[in-house]
């Protein structure tokens, strides 16, 4: 089994002038491992990468892509020791709080770009019971005047819990929800991706692809349907790294995953703690807290390109 490796060193200069340093750890995990029922092997790769990060004295590490999704259904506390390393969970963050915050800001700002009025809009959150999805629902309920929330997920019990917590939201199947939504927030992550028939979508429709992998923009090409990659931040910071050139980012020098940015923010603010961890622990207050740090250090949500 290929071991984890540190493949890049990173220096970041904040808008405030503060400079921090970091490392990129390649876990040697591939998403196909989940699709081919190699979950144990996949989990082991992520845990080994965490141990490697800790062994190299990294204070706060974000778990990117599927690395954090694995732990939504896995009790990491069952594994505390990896060879000679006692894993300290407080050194790791899923980055989901910042991702959820950025997706919410994308909903607010991209809908305005399209002329959609949230007070008259229906938003379908697909993957609503996940860590990010439930946080997005909480924000939309508490911080926006969105007219209607449609809650879409596979687990009915969790959907009902979320609906009870929010005191609102209609529970619908994906096929029922899509034709009703002015805005679709896709925060489900599936190794095999998903097939969506673009002809059932409203026009106009804003679709925010906050899942993993991000492939809706290539699958959905229809007039008046705008697909925006969700959970991506733009920045004008000086970031000296090379790894982003090969991780499928549209503008590698100016964009990055919000979950990665969370580790940078925690380092800038010296919040060396597992700011985002577990499932459904993200509060609106914590989203606002990380959001303030995000703005302070120069990150902003990726938005739609200006009309030609």
């Amino acid at each position, binding site marked *: 089994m290929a071991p984890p490796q540190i*493949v890049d060193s990173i220096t970041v200069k904040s808008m405030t002038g503060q400079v921090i340093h970091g490392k990129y750890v390649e876990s040697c995990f*591939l998403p*196909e491992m989940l699709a081919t029922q190699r979950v144990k092997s996949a989990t082991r790769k992520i845990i080994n990468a*965490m141990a490697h990060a800790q062994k190299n004295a990294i204070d706060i*590490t*974000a778990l990117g892509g599927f690395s954090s999704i694995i732990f939504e259904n896995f009790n990491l506390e069952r594994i505390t020791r990896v060879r000679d390393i006692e894993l300290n969970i407080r050194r790791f963050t899923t980055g989901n709080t910042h991702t959820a915050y950025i997706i919410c800001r994308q909903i607010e700002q991209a809908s305005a770009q399209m002329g959609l009025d949230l007070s008259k809009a229906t938003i379908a959150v697909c993957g609503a019971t996940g860590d990010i999805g439930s946080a997005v629902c909480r924000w939309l309920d508490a911080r926006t005047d969105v007219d209607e929330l449609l809650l879409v997920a596979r687990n009915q019990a969790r959907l009902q819990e979320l609906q009870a917590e929010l005191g609102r939201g209609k529970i619908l199947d994906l096929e029922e929800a899509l034709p009703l939504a002015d805005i679709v927030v896709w925060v489900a992550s599936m190794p095999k991706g998903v097939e969506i028939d673009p002809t059932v979508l409203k026009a106009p429709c804003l679709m925010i692809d906050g899942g993993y992998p991000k492939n809706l923009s290539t699958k959905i090409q229809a007039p008046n349907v705008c697909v925006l990659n969700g959970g991506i931040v733009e920045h004008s910071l000086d970031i000296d790294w090379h790894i982003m050139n090969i991780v499928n980012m549209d503008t590698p020098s100016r964009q990055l995953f919000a979950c990665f940015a969370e580790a940078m923010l925690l380092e800038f603010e010296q919040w060396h703690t597992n700011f985002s961890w577990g499932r459904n622990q993200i509060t609106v207050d914590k989203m606002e807290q990380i959001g303030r740090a995000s703005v302070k250090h120069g990150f902003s949500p990726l938005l739609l390109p200006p009309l030609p």
Partner: protein
Amino acid sequence: MLLVRERHLDSPQIDIAMFGLIGHLTSLEHAQFVARDLGYPEYADEGLDFGAWHPLRSWILLQSKA
């Protein structure tokens, strides 16, 4: 580890606080593309225990020294 030591030789901040990012390539196809793109076709036909991180690491090291 060798790479880390080499990079640390260039870095006076070895004892300072650091952040980390744990990432992965998006798919086996992507990994195979990266291997070919970086000029390591010998890795491009591997399966799920893919070795693309070897050319990946070499490539990044070259970039950082360029």
